[in-house]
């Protein structure tokens, strides 16, 4: 997972830098008249529609994972697997960070994906205490509305959560309705709170605080909707 994330981040950086180079360093403007410009288009410097329709967010989160009903296995079967219920906990608690990107489809509808990495410690059936890592990868559709300087959103997170205790790990699918409330700090930034529950294991919950950058002011939505 880490290698995939690193690879995707590298590719994104490369793509963004090449776009920047094409527009900045290598594009020589030949006219400033609309329709004759080579490096820009009408509205580039001022219009909402010319800005990328994305938001990116960074959050601090608390996540829980229900080990009951799952089997924790070791890589290469280094040790025998054990049942999650042998941990004798209702849920594993963890704290960590998340990063998400949302792509605006319409003013009210968006598609998002999100990655979270949280950690804590847990006690193995043998009684040893070891590091707990949880990796949460989700994506899905979302709806949002803005009431002046407060935005509300409701989304469906579909994906996978992997929990690892030491070198043993188990995974469960995620079908998680989630909601959030955000307050606009500026036309381009919000701070808010979010939470959700996994329908496949209702003890698996996530909540936290999130800081979001919006490429389009107020999500590109004029007043009156």
């Amino acid at each position: 997972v880490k290698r995939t994330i690193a690879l995707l981040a590298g590719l994104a950086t490369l793509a963004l830098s090449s776009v920047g180079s094409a527009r900045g360093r290598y594009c020589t403007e030949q006219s400033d008249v609309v329709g004759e410009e080579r490096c820009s288009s009408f509205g580039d410097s001022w219009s909402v529609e010319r800005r990328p329709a994305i938001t990116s967010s960074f959050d601090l989160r608390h996540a829980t994972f229900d080990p009951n009903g799952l089997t924790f296995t070791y890589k290469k079967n280094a040790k025998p697997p054990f049942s999650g219920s042998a941990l004798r906990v209702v849920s594993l608690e963890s704290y960590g960070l998340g990063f998400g990107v949302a792509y605006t489809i319409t003013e009210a509808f968006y598609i998002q994906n999100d990655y979270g990495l949280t950690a804590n410690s847990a006690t193995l059936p043998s009684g040893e205490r070891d590091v707990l890592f949880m990796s949460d990868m989700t994506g899905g559709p979302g709806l949002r509305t803005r009431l002046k300087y407060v935005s509300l959103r409701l989304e469906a997170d579909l994906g996978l959560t992997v929990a690892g205790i030491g070198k043993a790990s188990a995974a469960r699918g995620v079908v998680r309705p989630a909601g959030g409330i955000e307050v606009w700090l500026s036309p381009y930034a919000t701070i808010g709170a979010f939470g959700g529950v996994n329908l496949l294991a209702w003890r698996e919950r996530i909540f936290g605080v999130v800081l979001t950058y919006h490429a389009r002011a107020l999500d590109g939505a004029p007043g009156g909707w």
Partner: protein
Amino acid sequence: LSSCFGTLPHTRYDRVPFSKGHVVRKLGCLELGFATEAVGRRTLLDVDVRNTCIEPTLVDLNQLRIEAEHEGGARRPAYLADPRGEIWPMHVDSFAEGTERIAVDEASGARRRCLDISKVSAVAPTEPTVCLTVASAGVP
């Protein structure tokens, strides 16, 4: 941007919006500035746009109506040249401003142009008509 456009041959005004010589109209949150200049045989219309509010505000320059006034007072319709079909309704970003320079398609010999801006924005202007006399490139 300034380095990109600084060497272009035909600009009477710099790329800073609302330079002197522009006729400015306010339509609610939207401010529009207009000026014309003659470059060679054609006329260019400089349009400055500015949003003075936090909410994005709509501007539709397709709704700009232009009449070119000729010798003897005859008026004929003129049009904004948009060879790539780029001019469509757009929202001016929060507190954003910018300038567009657009060629005017018109019959030759026009002395001045009058713009009807009444449908450019949802807010009706108090003065819907802007009349502009062409200045030659390089004349302040």
